Protein backbone atom coordinates (compact mmCIF):
# COMPACT_ATOMS: atom_id res chain seq x y z
CA UNK A 1 0.00 0.00 0.00
CA UNK A 2 1.30 3.44 -0.88
CA UNK A 3 1.94 5.76 2.03
CA UNK A 4 0.20 9.11 1.63
CA UNK A 5 1.85 12.46 2.21
CA UNK A 6 -0.32 13.04 5.26
CA UNK A 7 0.72 9.73 6.78
CA UNK A 8 4.38 10.68 6.37
CA UNK A 9 3.78 14.08 7.96
CA UNK A 10 1.96 12.42 10.80
CA UNK A 11 5.06 10.35 11.54
CA UNK A 12 7.13 13.52 11.42
CA UNK A 13 6.14 14.59 14.92
CA UNK A 14 9.05 16.87 15.73
CA UNK A 15 11.86 18.39 13.67
CA UNK A 16 14.64 16.57 15.53
CA UNK A 17 13.48 13.14 14.32
CA UNK A 18 13.16 13.09 10.56
CA UNK A 19 11.39 10.12 8.95
CA UNK A 20 13.17 8.60 5.93
CA UNK A 21 10.01 8.80 3.84
CA UNK A 22 10.15 12.58 3.57
CA UNK A 23 13.03 11.99 1.17
CA UNK A 24 11.22 9.43 -0.95
CA UNK A 25 7.46 9.91 -0.92
CA UNK A 26 6.12 10.99 -4.32
CA UNK A 27 2.93 12.66 -3.09
CA UNK A 28 4.84 14.59 -0.48
CA UNK A 29 7.30 15.70 -3.14
CA UNK A 30 4.46 17.03 -5.33
CA UNK A 31 3.14 18.96 -2.38
CA UNK A 32 6.61 20.41 -1.73
CA UNK A 33 6.82 21.61 -5.32
CA UNK A 34 3.43 23.28 -5.06
CA UNK A 35 3.92 24.83 -1.63
CA UNK A 36 7.56 25.89 -1.91
CA UNK A 37 8.76 26.13 -5.50
CA UNK A 38 5.44 27.14 -7.10
CA UNK A 39 3.89 28.74 -4.02
CA UNK A 40 4.55 31.81 -1.94
CA UNK A 41 8.34 31.63 -2.04
CA UNK A 42 11.04 33.42 -4.02
CA UNK A 43 13.17 31.11 -6.14
CA UNK A 44 16.58 31.80 -7.64
CA UNK A 45 16.70 32.42 -11.37
CA UNK A 46 20.12 33.88 -12.08
CA UNK A 47 22.40 36.87 -12.10
CA UNK A 48 21.71 40.02 -14.09
CA UNK A 49 25.23 39.71 -15.48
CA UNK A 50 24.02 36.63 -17.38
CA UNK A 51 21.65 38.78 -19.44
CA UNK A 52 23.49 42.09 -19.78
CA UNK A 53 22.10 43.29 -23.15
CA UNK A 54 18.65 43.81 -24.62
CA UNK A 55 17.42 40.52 -26.10
CA UNK A 56 19.64 38.35 -23.90
CA UNK A 57 18.02 35.35 -22.33
CA UNK A 58 18.82 32.51 -19.98
CA UNK A 59 16.69 29.40 -19.71
CA UNK A 60 16.48 27.73 -16.33
CA UNK A 61 14.04 26.10 -13.95
CA UNK A 62 11.95 27.07 -10.97
CA UNK A 63 11.24 23.77 -9.32
CA UNK A 64 10.85 21.44 -12.30
CA UNK A 65 9.24 24.09 -14.50
CA UNK A 66 11.19 25.66 -17.34
CA UNK A 67 11.39 29.46 -17.24
CA UNK A 68 13.18 32.15 -19.23
CA UNK A 69 14.95 35.14 -17.78
CA UNK A 70 15.08 37.93 -20.37
CA UNK A 71 16.40 41.45 -20.69
CA UNK A 72 14.10 43.69 -22.67
CA UNK A 73 14.82 46.87 -24.61
CA UNK A 74 13.88 49.01 -21.61
CA UNK A 75 16.55 47.27 -19.51
CA UNK A 76 14.05 45.39 -17.35
CA UNK A 77 14.60 41.80 -16.33
CA UNK A 78 11.62 39.53 -16.90
CA UNK A 79 10.99 35.94 -15.93
CA UNK A 80 8.38 34.13 -18.03
CA UNK A 81 7.26 30.55 -18.39
CA UNK A 82 9.17 28.70 -21.09
CA UNK A 83 5.89 27.38 -22.45
CA UNK A 84 3.99 28.54 -25.51
CA UNK A 85 0.36 29.27 -24.71
CA UNK A 86 -0.77 27.53 -27.87
CA UNK A 87 0.40 23.95 -27.41
CA UNK A 88 2.79 24.10 -24.50
CA UNK A 89 5.94 23.92 -26.61
CA UNK A 90 9.15 24.87 -24.79
CA UNK A 91 9.98 28.07 -26.65
CA UNK A 92 13.71 28.23 -26.11
CA UNK A 93 16.07 25.30 -25.87
CA UNK A 94 19.48 26.95 -25.52
CA UNK A 95 20.79 27.75 -22.06
CA UNK A 96 21.75 31.27 -23.18
CA UNK A 97 21.30 33.43 -26.24
CA UNK A 98 20.00 36.62 -27.74
CA UNK A 99 16.73 37.03 -29.65
CA UNK A 100 14.57 39.91 -30.79
CA UNK A 101 11.36 38.21 -29.75
CA UNK A 102 10.29 34.90 -28.26
CA UNK A 103 8.94 32.91 -31.19
CA UNK A 104 7.50 29.43 -30.85
CA UNK A 105 9.12 27.07 -33.38
CA UNK A 106 5.90 25.10 -33.88
CA UNK A 107 3.34 27.68 -35.15
CA UNK A 108 5.36 30.86 -34.69
CA UNK A 109 3.34 32.49 -32.00
CA UNK A 110 5.35 35.56 -31.20
CA UNK A 111 5.88 37.14 -27.79
CA UNK A 112 7.71 40.22 -26.59
CA UNK A 113 10.64 39.70 -24.21
CA UNK A 114 8.28 40.34 -21.29
CA UNK A 115 5.95 37.58 -22.46
CA UNK A 116 3.20 39.65 -24.10
CA UNK A 117 1.72 37.85 -27.09
CA UNK A 118 2.01 40.19 -30.08
CA UNK A 119 1.23 38.01 -33.03
CA UNK A 120 -0.16 34.68 -34.25
CA UNK A 121 0.08 33.57 -37.89
CA UNK A 122 -3.12 33.55 -39.99
CA UNK A 123 -5.00 35.47 -37.35
CA UNK A 124 -7.37 36.86 -39.97
CA UNK A 125 -7.29 33.67 -42.03
CA UNK A 126 -5.90 33.02 -45.49
CA UNK A 127 -7.86 34.14 -48.57
CA UNK A 128 -10.83 34.77 -46.34
CA UNK A 129 -10.80 31.35 -44.80
CA UNK A 130 -9.99 30.19 -41.31
CA UNK A 131 -8.36 32.52 -38.81
CA UNK A 132 -9.10 33.16 -35.17
CA UNK A 133 -12.51 34.18 -33.86
CA UNK A 134 -13.10 37.94 -33.61
CA UNK A 135 -13.15 37.74 -29.82
CA UNK A 136 -9.72 36.06 -29.62
CA UNK A 137 -7.66 38.64 -27.70
CA UNK A 138 -3.90 38.25 -28.07
CA UNK A 139 -2.89 39.72 -24.75
CA UNK A 140 -5.07 37.24 -22.92
CA UNK A 141 -2.70 34.54 -24.16
CA UNK A 142 0.59 36.01 -23.07
CA UNK A 143 3.21 33.85 -21.45
CA UNK A 144 2.86 33.27 -17.76
CA UNK A 145 4.83 36.07 -16.14
CA UNK A 146 6.49 35.46 -12.82
CA UNK A 147 6.88 38.23 -10.29
CA UNK A 148 10.53 39.29 -10.30
CA UNK A 149 12.83 40.56 -7.55
CA UNK A 150 16.19 42.11 -8.45
CA UNK A 151 18.63 42.65 -5.64
CA UNK A 152 22.00 44.19 -6.53
CA UNK A 153 22.52 41.90 -9.49
CA UNK A 154 20.83 38.68 -8.37
CA UNK A 155 17.38 37.74 -9.65
CA UNK A 156 14.62 35.76 -7.96
CA UNK A 157 11.12 35.00 -9.19
CA UNK A 158 7.87 33.63 -7.82
CA UNK A 159 4.77 32.15 -9.38
CA UNK A 160 2.61 33.62 -6.61
CA UNK A 161 1.90 37.34 -6.90
CA UNK A 162 1.08 37.45 -3.19
CA UNK A 163 4.60 36.54 -2.12
CA UNK A 164 5.84 39.32 0.17
CA UNK A 165 8.63 41.65 -0.99
CA UNK A 166 12.01 39.99 -1.37
CA UNK A 167 13.70 41.77 1.58
CA UNK A 168 10.72 40.84 3.73
CA UNK A 169 11.05 37.27 2.49
CA UNK A 170 14.71 37.14 3.48
CA UNK A 171 13.95 38.62 6.88
CA UNK A 172 15.92 41.18 8.86
CA UNK A 173 18.33 38.60 10.32
CA UNK A 174 19.41 37.24 6.93
CA UNK A 175 19.32 40.33 4.71
CA UNK A 176 22.52 41.94 6.08
CA UNK A 177 24.49 38.82 5.14
CA UNK A 178 22.81 38.59 1.77
CA UNK A 179 23.60 42.24 1.13
CA UNK A 180 27.19 41.64 2.21
CA UNK A 181 27.86 39.56 -0.94
CA UNK A 182 25.39 41.39 -3.16
CA UNK A 183 26.42 44.86 -2.08
CA UNK A 184 25.97 46.58 -5.42
CA UNK A 185 29.26 46.19 -7.28
CA UNK A 186 28.47 44.70 -10.69
CA UNK A 187 29.05 40.96 -10.82
CA UNK A 188 31.08 39.00 -13.33
CA UNK A 189 30.21 35.39 -14.18
CA UNK A 190 33.23 33.06 -14.14
CA UNK A 191 31.43 29.93 -15.31
CA UNK A 192 29.25 26.96 -14.46
CA UNK A 193 29.43 23.50 -12.96
CA UNK A 194 26.41 21.22 -13.15
CA UNK A 195 25.86 17.94 -11.40
CA UNK A 196 22.94 15.61 -10.79
CA UNK A 197 22.99 14.43 -7.20
CA UNK A 198 21.05 11.26 -6.51
CA UNK A 199 19.47 12.48 -3.33
CA UNK A 200 16.42 14.39 -2.19
CA UNK A 201 16.70 18.17 -2.59
CA UNK A 202 16.20 18.81 1.14
CA UNK A 203 19.37 16.89 1.93
CA UNK A 204 21.34 19.67 0.27
CA UNK A 205 19.73 22.24 2.54
CA UNK A 206 20.49 20.08 5.54
CA UNK A 207 24.10 19.87 4.44
CA UNK A 208 24.52 23.65 4.34
CA UNK A 209 22.60 24.09 7.59
CA UNK A 210 24.92 21.62 9.29
CA UNK A 211 28.05 23.19 10.75
CA UNK A 212 28.74 19.88 12.54
CA UNK A 213 29.99 18.02 9.45
CA UNK A 214 32.69 20.16 7.80
CA UNK A 215 35.17 19.69 10.66
CA UNK A 216 34.61 15.93 10.49
CA UNK A 217 33.89 14.95 6.89
CA UNK A 218 36.00 17.57 5.17
CA UNK A 219 39.60 16.76 6.05
CA UNK A 220 40.77 19.50 3.73
CA UNK A 221 38.87 22.19 5.64
CA UNK A 222 39.93 21.14 9.08
CA UNK A 223 43.56 20.61 8.21
CA UNK A 224 43.94 24.01 6.61
CA UNK A 225 41.76 25.85 9.10
CA UNK A 226 39.12 26.87 6.61
CA UNK A 227 36.25 25.60 8.76
CA UNK A 228 36.49 23.96 12.17
CA UNK A 229 34.71 24.08 15.49
CA UNK A 230 37.33 26.09 17.36
CA UNK A 231 36.63 29.08 15.14
CA UNK A 232 34.48 32.00 16.09
CA UNK A 233 31.19 31.29 14.44
CA UNK A 234 27.55 32.12 14.37
CA UNK A 235 24.46 30.36 13.09
CA UNK A 236 21.72 32.73 11.99
CA UNK A 237 18.19 31.99 10.88
CA UNK A 238 15.23 34.13 9.93
CA UNK A 239 12.21 34.37 12.22
CA UNK A 240 10.49 31.53 10.36
CA UNK A 241 13.53 29.26 10.38
CA UNK A 242 13.56 28.60 6.64
CA UNK A 243 16.72 30.45 5.60
CA UNK A 244 20.04 30.33 7.39
CA UNK A 245 23.59 31.61 7.44
CA UNK A 246 26.56 29.68 8.70
CA UNK A 247 29.20 32.26 9.50
CA UNK A 248 32.75 31.72 10.57
CA UNK A 249 36.13 33.38 10.89
CA UNK A 250 39.11 31.40 9.75
CA UNK A 251 41.94 30.35 12.05
CA UNK A 252 45.22 28.86 11.09
CA UNK A 253 44.60 25.16 11.20
CA UNK A 254 46.96 22.78 12.89
CA UNK A 255 46.39 20.70 15.98
CA UNK A 256 43.94 21.49 18.78
CA UNK A 257 43.39 18.38 20.89
CA UNK A 258 39.72 19.11 21.59
CA UNK A 259 38.97 19.59 17.92
CA UNK A 260 41.37 17.41 16.03
CA UNK A 261 42.14 14.72 18.62
CA UNK A 262 40.52 11.44 17.70
CA UNK A 263 39.23 12.79 14.40
CA UNK A 264 40.41 10.34 11.82
CA UNK A 265 40.02 12.78 8.96
CA UNK A 266 42.51 15.28 10.43
CA UNK A 267 45.76 14.92 8.52
CA UNK A 268 48.55 16.36 10.57
CA UNK A 269 51.50 17.19 8.43
CA UNK A 270 49.40 17.39 5.30
CA UNK A 271 51.14 19.92 3.12
CA UNK A 272 50.26 21.33 -0.23
CA UNK A 273 52.96 21.34 -2.88
CA UNK A 274 51.33 24.47 -4.29
CA UNK A 275 49.57 26.65 -1.73
CA UNK A 276 47.93 28.97 -4.26
CA UNK A 277 44.70 27.08 -3.75
CA UNK A 278 44.48 28.50 -0.22
CA UNK A 279 46.11 31.85 -0.96
CA UNK A 280 43.42 33.80 0.85
CA UNK A 281 43.34 37.58 0.53
CA UNK A 282 40.88 39.50 2.66
CA UNK A 283 38.42 41.64 0.74
CA UNK A 284 37.07 44.97 1.95
CA UNK A 285 33.48 43.82 2.10
CA UNK A 286 34.10 40.79 4.34
CA UNK A 287 34.06 42.48 7.72
CA UNK A 288 35.02 39.96 10.41
CA UNK A 289 33.86 36.89 8.52
CA UNK A 290 35.81 34.66 6.18
CA UNK A 291 32.98 32.27 5.43
CA UNK A 292 29.28 32.95 5.03
CA UNK A 293 27.17 30.11 3.66
CA UNK A 294 23.55 31.05 3.10
CA UNK A 295 20.64 28.75 2.41
CA UNK A 296 17.86 30.76 0.82
CA UNK A 297 14.93 28.39 0.99
CA UNK A 298 13.95 26.54 -1.13
CA UNK A 299 16.06 27.04 -4.23
CA UNK A 300 19.58 28.31 -3.68
CA UNK A 301 22.72 28.37 -1.60
CA UNK A 302 24.92 31.44 -1.67
CA UNK A 303 28.55 30.57 -1.08
CA UNK A 304 31.31 32.79 0.17
CA UNK A 305 34.19 30.57 1.17
CA UNK A 306 37.10 32.97 1.52
CA UNK A 307 37.63 34.29 -2.06
CA UNK A 308 35.41 31.77 -3.77
CA UNK A 309 31.88 32.93 -4.54
CA UNK A 310 29.05 31.00 -6.11
CA UNK A 311 25.33 30.56 -6.28
CA UNK A 312 24.30 26.92 -6.09
CA UNK A 313 20.85 26.45 -7.56
CA UNK A 314 18.73 23.48 -6.54
CA UNK A 315 16.54 22.08 -9.30
CA UNK A 316 14.49 19.16 -7.95
CA UNK A 317 14.06 16.23 -10.36
CA UNK A 318 11.71 13.95 -8.46
CA UNK A 319 11.99 12.87 -4.83
CA UNK A 320 15.25 10.97 -5.38
CA UNK A 321 17.45 13.44 -7.23
CA UNK A 322 18.14 17.08 -7.96
CA UNK A 323 20.36 19.07 -10.27
CA UNK A 324 22.87 21.30 -8.57
CA UNK A 325 23.97 24.20 -10.74
CA UNK A 326 26.95 26.24 -9.62
CA UNK A 327 27.46 29.73 -10.99
CA UNK A 328 30.85 31.01 -9.90
CA UNK A 329 31.22 34.75 -9.96
CA UNK A 330 33.37 37.65 -8.93
CA UNK A 331 33.02 41.39 -9.32
CA UNK A 332 33.49 43.28 -12.53
CA UNK A 333 36.25 45.41 -11.02
CA UNK A 334 38.24 42.45 -9.66
CA UNK A 335 41.93 42.56 -10.51
CA UNK A 336 43.28 39.79 -12.74
CA UNK A 337 45.06 38.37 -9.65
CA UNK A 338 41.79 38.22 -7.72
CA UNK A 339 40.02 36.44 -10.58
CA UNK A 340 42.86 33.90 -10.74
CA UNK A 341 42.64 33.45 -6.98
CA UNK A 342 38.89 32.83 -7.12
CA UNK A 343 39.46 30.26 -9.86
CA UNK A 344 42.22 28.46 -7.93
CA UNK A 345 40.01 28.27 -4.86
CA UNK A 346 37.17 26.95 -6.99
CA UNK A 347 39.05 23.62 -6.93
CA UNK A 348 37.54 23.10 -3.49
CA UNK A 349 33.99 23.33 -4.80
CA UNK A 350 31.69 21.79 -7.39
CA UNK A 351 31.38 18.16 -8.51
CA UNK A 352 35.16 17.67 -8.37
CA UNK A 353 35.76 19.94 -5.38
CA UNK A 354 38.06 18.84 -2.57
CA UNK A 355 35.22 19.41 -0.11
CA UNK A 356 32.00 19.66 -2.15
CA UNK A 357 32.51 16.34 -3.89
CA UNK A 358 32.24 14.75 -0.47
CA UNK A 359 28.89 16.41 0.19
CA UNK A 360 27.41 15.00 -3.02
CA UNK A 361 28.74 11.57 -2.15
CA UNK A 362 27.36 11.43 1.41
CA UNK A 363 24.00 12.79 0.25
CA UNK A 364 23.81 9.91 -2.20
CA UNK A 365 24.80 7.45 0.53
CA UNK A 366 21.95 8.79 2.71
CA UNK A 367 19.40 8.58 -0.07
CA UNK A 368 20.33 4.97 -0.83
CA UNK A 369 19.27 3.99 2.67
CA UNK A 370 16.21 6.21 2.84
CA UNK A 371 14.85 4.52 -0.28
CA UNK A 372 15.15 1.03 1.19
CA UNK A 373 14.92 1.41 4.97
CA UNK A 374 11.70 3.36 4.62
CA UNK A 375 10.91 3.11 8.34
CA UNK A 376 14.24 4.69 9.25
CA UNK A 377 14.75 8.17 10.57
CA UNK A 378 17.44 10.80 10.89
CA UNK A 379 18.42 12.31 14.23
CA UNK A 380 19.03 16.03 14.63
CA UNK A 381 19.61 16.48 18.36
CA UNK A 382 23.05 18.04 18.52
CA UNK A 383 22.73 21.04 20.85
CA UNK A 384 19.29 19.97 22.04
CA UNK A 385 15.92 19.87 20.36
CA UNK A 386 15.19 23.56 20.05
CA UNK A 387 15.26 25.91 17.09
CA UNK A 388 16.70 29.36 16.40
CA UNK A 389 20.16 30.89 16.15
CA UNK A 390 23.37 29.80 17.89
CA UNK A 391 26.77 31.33 18.64
CA UNK A 392 28.78 28.22 17.89
CA UNK A 393 28.90 25.39 15.35
CA UNK A 394 28.34 22.34 17.55
CA UNK A 395 24.68 22.38 16.69
CA UNK A 396 21.95 21.12 14.38
CA UNK A 397 19.57 23.91 15.27
CA UNK A 398 19.38 25.23 11.70
CA UNK A 399 18.14 21.87 10.42
CA UNK A 400 15.49 21.72 13.11
CA UNK A 401 14.49 25.31 12.36
CA UNK A 402 13.98 24.48 8.69
CA UNK A 403 11.87 21.43 9.47
CA UNK A 404 9.79 23.36 12.00
CA UNK A 405 8.88 25.73 9.15
CA UNK A 406 8.54 22.87 6.68
CA UNK A 407 6.06 21.05 8.91
CA UNK A 408 4.01 24.19 9.49
CA UNK A 409 3.71 24.86 5.77
CA UNK A 410 3.19 21.26 4.70
CA UNK A 411 0.47 20.79 7.27
CA UNK A 412 -1.19 23.98 6.09
CA UNK A 413 -0.63 25.76 9.40
CA UNK A 414 1.34 28.66 8.08
CA UNK A 415 0.38 31.95 6.48
CA UNK A 416 2.84 31.26 3.66
CA UNK A 417 0.67 28.32 2.70
Amino acid sequence: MVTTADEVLQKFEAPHRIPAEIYTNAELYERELNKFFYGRHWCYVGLEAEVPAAGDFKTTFVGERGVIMTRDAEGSVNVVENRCQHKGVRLLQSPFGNVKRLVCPYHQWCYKMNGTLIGVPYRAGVQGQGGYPADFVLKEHSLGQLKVARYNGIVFATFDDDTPSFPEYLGSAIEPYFKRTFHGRPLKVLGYNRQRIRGNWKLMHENIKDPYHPGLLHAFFITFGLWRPDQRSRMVTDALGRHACMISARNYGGRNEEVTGGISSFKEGMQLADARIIDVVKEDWWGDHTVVMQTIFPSVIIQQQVNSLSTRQIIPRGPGQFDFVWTHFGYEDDSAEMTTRRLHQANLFGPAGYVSLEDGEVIEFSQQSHETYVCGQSIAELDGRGTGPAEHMVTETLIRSMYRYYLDVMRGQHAAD
Partner: protein
Amino acid sequence: MQRTEDVELYLAIAETYQAYADCMDQGQLDQWPGFFTEHGVYKAQARENFDRGLPLAAIACAGRGMLEDRVFVISKVMVYAPRYLRHILGPPRILSRTQNEVRSQGSFCIYQTLAHRPTELLSVGRYQDRISLEDHERLKFRERLAIYDSLLIPNSLVFPL
Protein backbone atom coordinates in the same frame (compact mmCIF):
# COMPACT_ATOMS: atom_id res chain seq x y z
CA MET B 1 51.73 13.14 -43.33
CA GLN B 2 54.34 12.16 -45.83
CA ARG B 3 57.61 11.82 -44.04
CA THR B 4 58.50 8.95 -41.78
CA GLU B 5 59.23 11.46 -39.05
CA ASP B 6 55.62 12.68 -39.18
CA VAL B 7 54.28 9.17 -38.97
CA GLU B 8 56.51 8.48 -36.01
CA LEU B 9 55.33 11.63 -34.28
CA TYR B 10 51.70 10.68 -34.88
CA LEU B 11 52.28 7.24 -33.43
CA ALA B 12 54.07 8.72 -30.42
CA ILE B 13 51.11 11.03 -29.77
CA ALA B 14 48.64 8.17 -30.12
CA GLU B 15 50.74 6.14 -27.71
CA THR B 16 50.83 9.04 -25.21
CA TYR B 17 47.06 9.41 -25.35
CA GLN B 18 46.59 5.70 -24.79
CA ALA B 19 49.17 5.56 -21.99
CA TYR B 20 47.34 8.42 -20.23
CA ALA B 21 44.03 6.58 -20.51
CA ASP B 22 45.55 3.32 -19.30
CA CYS B 23 47.09 5.12 -16.34
CA MET B 24 43.65 6.35 -15.25
CA ASP B 25 41.89 3.08 -16.04
CA GLN B 26 44.43 1.08 -14.03
CA GLY B 27 44.05 3.46 -11.10
CA GLN B 28 47.70 4.51 -11.27
CA LEU B 29 46.88 8.05 -10.31
CA ASP B 30 50.30 8.72 -8.83
CA GLN B 31 51.73 8.54 -12.36
CA TRP B 32 49.34 11.15 -13.68
CA PRO B 33 51.49 14.26 -12.98
CA GLY B 34 54.34 12.63 -14.92
CA PHE B 35 52.39 13.16 -18.15
CA PHE B 36 52.86 16.91 -17.76
CA THR B 37 55.78 19.31 -18.05
CA GLU B 38 56.96 21.12 -14.92
CA HIS B 39 54.55 24.01 -15.56
CA GLY B 40 51.96 21.84 -17.28
CA VAL B 41 48.33 22.87 -17.09
CA TYR B 42 45.38 20.49 -16.75
CA LYS B 43 41.74 21.42 -16.83
CA ALA B 44 38.52 19.45 -16.91
CA GLN B 45 36.20 22.09 -18.23
CA ALA B 46 32.54 22.06 -19.23
CA ARG B 47 32.16 22.72 -22.94
CA GLU B 48 29.69 25.50 -22.23
CA ASN B 49 32.41 27.39 -20.31
CA PHE B 50 35.05 26.75 -22.95
CA ASP B 51 32.81 27.81 -25.83
CA ARG B 52 31.71 31.00 -24.10
CA GLY B 53 35.19 31.95 -22.95
CA LEU B 54 34.30 31.54 -19.28
CA PRO B 55 37.37 30.53 -17.30
CA LEU B 56 35.85 28.24 -14.65
CA ALA B 57 36.84 24.57 -14.80
CA ALA B 58 35.65 21.71 -12.59
CA ILE B 59 39.29 20.78 -12.10
CA ALA B 60 42.09 23.25 -12.77
CA CYS B 61 45.75 22.51 -12.04
CA ALA B 62 48.55 24.85 -13.02
CA GLY B 63 51.93 23.20 -12.62
CA ARG B 64 53.26 19.98 -11.15
CA GLY B 65 52.56 21.08 -7.58
CA MET B 66 48.83 21.42 -8.14
CA LEU B 67 48.75 18.19 -10.12
CA GLU B 68 50.45 16.38 -7.25
CA ASP B 69 48.16 17.99 -4.69
CA ARG B 70 45.14 16.77 -6.64
CA VAL B 71 46.57 13.25 -6.59
CA PHE B 72 47.23 13.47 -2.85
CA VAL B 73 43.73 14.76 -2.04
CA ILE B 74 42.06 12.10 -4.20
CA SER B 75 44.17 9.28 -2.82
CA LYS B 76 44.46 10.25 0.84
CA VAL B 77 41.93 12.87 1.80
CA MET B 78 38.57 12.75 0.04
CA VAL B 79 35.63 10.53 0.87
CA TYR B 80 33.85 8.95 -2.11
CA ALA B 81 32.48 5.66 -3.35
CA PRO B 82 35.20 3.59 -5.04
CA ARG B 83 34.91 3.23 -8.80
CA TYR B 84 36.59 2.04 -11.96
CA LEU B 85 37.01 4.21 -15.01
CA ARG B 86 37.26 3.02 -18.62
CA HIS B 87 38.43 5.40 -21.33
CA ILE B 88 37.50 4.73 -24.93
CA LEU B 89 39.52 7.07 -27.11
CA GLY B 90 39.07 8.17 -30.67
CA PRO B 91 42.25 8.48 -32.74
CA PRO B 92 44.11 11.76 -32.14
CA ARG B 93 44.49 14.44 -34.77
CA ILE B 94 47.47 16.73 -35.13
CA LEU B 95 46.24 20.26 -35.61
CA SER B 96 49.54 22.07 -35.96
CA ARG B 97 53.19 21.71 -35.14
CA THR B 98 56.18 23.94 -34.50
CA GLN B 99 59.78 23.12 -33.69
CA ASN B 100 59.07 22.30 -30.06
CA GLU B 101 55.32 21.90 -29.75
CA VAL B 102 52.43 19.96 -31.26
CA ARG B 103 48.80 20.87 -30.95
CA SER B 104 46.50 17.90 -31.10
CA GLN B 105 43.06 16.75 -30.11
CA GLY B 106 41.08 13.56 -29.71
CA SER B 107 37.70 12.40 -28.43
CA PHE B 108 37.15 10.54 -25.20
CA CYS B 109 34.29 8.52 -23.87
CA ILE B 110 34.64 7.53 -20.23
CA TYR B 111 32.52 4.95 -18.45
CA GLN B 112 32.35 4.65 -14.72
CA THR B 113 31.60 1.55 -12.70
CA LEU B 114 30.61 1.65 -9.05
CA ALA B 115 29.98 -1.41 -6.92
CA HIS B 116 26.35 -2.60 -6.81
CA ARG B 117 25.40 -0.59 -9.86
CA PRO B 118 25.49 -1.11 -13.63
CA THR B 119 28.21 0.71 -15.54
CA GLU B 120 27.25 4.25 -16.49
CA LEU B 121 28.51 6.84 -18.93
CA LEU B 122 30.53 9.37 -16.97
CA SER B 123 31.58 11.77 -19.68
CA VAL B 124 32.16 12.33 -23.36
CA GLY B 125 34.21 15.12 -24.83
CA ARG B 126 37.57 15.91 -26.34
CA TYR B 127 41.11 16.48 -25.25
CA GLN B 128 42.67 19.59 -26.65
CA ASP B 129 46.39 19.48 -26.07
CA ARG B 130 49.65 21.30 -26.41
CA ILE B 131 52.43 18.74 -26.33
CA SER B 132 56.04 19.61 -25.69
CA LEU B 133 58.67 18.11 -27.98
CA GLU B 134 61.53 19.39 -25.85
CA ASP B 135 61.94 16.25 -23.76
CA HIS B 136 63.41 13.69 -26.13
CA GLU B 137 62.66 10.82 -23.78
CA ARG B 138 58.95 11.34 -23.67
CA LEU B 139 56.14 13.54 -24.98
CA LYS B 140 54.65 15.67 -22.22
CA PHE B 141 51.59 17.86 -21.99
CA ARG B 142 52.17 21.56 -21.68
CA GLU B 143 48.44 21.82 -21.53
CA ARG B 144 45.73 19.20 -21.53
CA LEU B 145 42.17 20.47 -21.62
CA ALA B 146 39.51 17.81 -21.15
CA ILE B 147 36.52 19.67 -22.56
CA TYR B 148 33.43 17.66 -21.67
CA ASP B 149 30.10 17.70 -23.51
CA SER B 150 28.40 15.90 -20.62
CA LEU B 151 27.61 19.09 -18.76
CA LEU B 152 25.47 17.42 -16.12
CA ILE B 153 27.94 15.30 -14.18
CA PRO B 154 26.47 12.17 -12.55
CA ASN B 155 27.13 13.44 -9.03
CA SER B 156 30.90 13.39 -8.66
CA LEU B 157 33.95 13.87 -10.81
CA VAL B 158 36.43 12.05 -8.60
CA PHE B 159 39.29 11.46 -11.02
CA PRO B 160 40.61 13.76 -13.71
CA LEU B 161 39.12 13.02 -17.12
